[in-house]
């Protein structure tokens, strides 16, 4: 294993130390327990948006803390969900009185830990709500699996809901918007190399030179299937079609009932896309794939959309939700209505995403 690191156990801590000295205008860092939070937190009467998850996906989530996006981010160890004490204490630090919305990627670990955090925050008198992001179309059903993973849509949701909170949306409005963004978003990923978790010291999986993993998540885990390596055009076509043709997806999620202080089950179904839909398209590098290759992919995405009557109205291209140094990419479509576009275009000022400010 070759990385620009010191001791394996200090990887997350030292990265946070770097962020703190690099961006004192945007964020602060708490180290025991670990969380990143807005430099001007708590922002009075603004809903606080908090996310978190395993480290190794940078800039997500810590790099999205700042004006117009996240109020707080809780980094776990590499590829390992953070713990409830981090989330709870982060929520306390950023709550400006209007409550805290947790944006949670749908992985068993994240879900279980954030559930505990919501309970702790609630017990402490903080208005807390959590919304699951589960947008990975590579996971086909929710009955025989842990359900779709939360991937690319997470970044777009954090941006859009962060801007809405900035604009004065209350907690329920933010939660409703987050739920909508999630239900409008679909992603798929692939990898051509594995990555190496520092503590593990060797690649998570072996991938022969002539094969690729399709339907991969963001944790360096193996994907849905292994296929012979193909051209960028072939790969892109396969993924975009899988996203655009994705059927209605149903699952039961647990959302927090603030009145009752209990979890309630909700059945949600994502409607399939239809011709004429407008989209924000996000072509993402898994880390090791250079942006030049992403543009070759985006070119093909645009071509297919043109043919299929899908209208791309905004895009994001780059490494935003990564898996360490893994080579590969993911494609996310987010159906965009006026509300979503307004908040997408709103100013954002974070280390990882910045415009209009």
């Amino acid at each position, binding site marked *: 294993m070759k990385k620009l690191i010191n001791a394996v156990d200090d990887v997350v801590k030292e990265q946070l130390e770097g962020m703190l000295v690099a961006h004192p205008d945007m964020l602060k860092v708490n180290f025991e327990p670990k969380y990143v939070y807005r430099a001007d937190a708590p922002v009075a009467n603004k809903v606080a948006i908090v996310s978190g998850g395993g480290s190794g996906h940078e800039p997500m989530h810590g790099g999205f803390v700042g004006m117009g996006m996240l109020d707080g981010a809780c980094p776990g*160890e590499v590829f390992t969900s953070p713990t409830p004490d981090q989330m709870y204490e982060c929520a306390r630090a950023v709550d400006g009185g209007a409550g805290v919305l947790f944006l949670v990627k749908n992985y*068993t670990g994240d879900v279980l830990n954030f559930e*505990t955090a919501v309970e702790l925050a609630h017990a402490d008198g903080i208005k807390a709500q959590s919304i699951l992001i589960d947008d990975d179309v590579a996971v086909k059903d929710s009955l025989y699996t*842990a359900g779709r*993973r939360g991937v690319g849509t997470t970044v777009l949701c954090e941006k859009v809901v962060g801007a809405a909170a900035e604009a004065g949306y209350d907690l329920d409005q933010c939660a409703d918007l987050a739920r909508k963004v999630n239900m409008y978003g679909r992603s798929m990923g692939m990898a051509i190399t594995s990555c190496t978790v520092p*503590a*593990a010291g060797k690649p998570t999986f072996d991938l022969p030179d002539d094969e690729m993993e399709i339907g991969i998540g963001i944790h360096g*885990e193996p994907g849905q299937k292994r296929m012979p390596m193909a051209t960028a055009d072939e790969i892109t076509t396969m993924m975009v079609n899988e996203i655009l043709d994705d059927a209605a997806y149903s699952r039961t999620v647990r959302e927090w009932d603030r009145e009752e202080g209990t979890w309630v089950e909700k059945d949600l179904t994502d409607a399939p896309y239809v011709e004429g839909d407008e989209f924000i398209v996000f072509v993402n590098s898994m880390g090791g794939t250079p942006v030049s290759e992403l543009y070759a992919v985006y070119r093909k995405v645009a071509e297919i959309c043109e043919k299929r009557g899908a209208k791309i109205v905004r895009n994001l291209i780059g490494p935003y939700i990564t898996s360490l140094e893994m080579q590969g990419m993911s494609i996310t479509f987010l159906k965009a209505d006026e509300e979503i576009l307004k908040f997408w275009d709103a100013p954002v000022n974070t280390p990882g995403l910045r415009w209009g400010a």
Partner: protein
Amino acid sequence: MITKAQIVQWLTTTAKVLAENKEYLTQLDSAIGDADHGINMDRGFKKVMEKLPTVEDKDIGNVLKTIGMTLISSVGGASGPLYGTFFMRSGMVVTSKEELSGDDLLQLLQAGVDGVVQRGRAQLGDKTMFDALSPAMDALRSGLENQDDVVTALETAVAAAEQGMKDTIPLQAKKGRASYLGERSIGHQDPGATSSYLILKALLDSVKA
């Protein structure tokens, strides 16, 4: 009777065994997960070892609850809240005890396993830690019902856990990260079932000692 010293020994042995099996568990997790289970468990039980001296004078219930909270706030991932809940719930049913009968042990473990199911909602055959824990509980219960001594009953429980762990190999995962692999999860042993077996084995060894 099982003494508090033996319970403390259990935790200590678990920490040792998980450290020894850190790479093995991580390797199992790299086949069908994200290559961190051994790292997670080792990190958590290293913290447990730091915490243990500060609670050794407390009763068994308190010791276990503290260990549970320590795991929750240090392991992360899926296994953190699950094992954390396991020990918290275990501790709750033996509040203020300084030693345990065989039946106490049964109740303690059963409460822990119930907690795992409540949090994680795994069913038998989903290819999770529950597939090792559940047969172990059945064996322990029938052993004690047959008037076996605790060590003998635990021996059959550990054997059942080991069998349950091995039986996860042909299963297709339906819970946790491995479920994303669909049929590709078949043919690999579940890391969480493996750590559960190791933890129960450590209990047996500590009670025998």
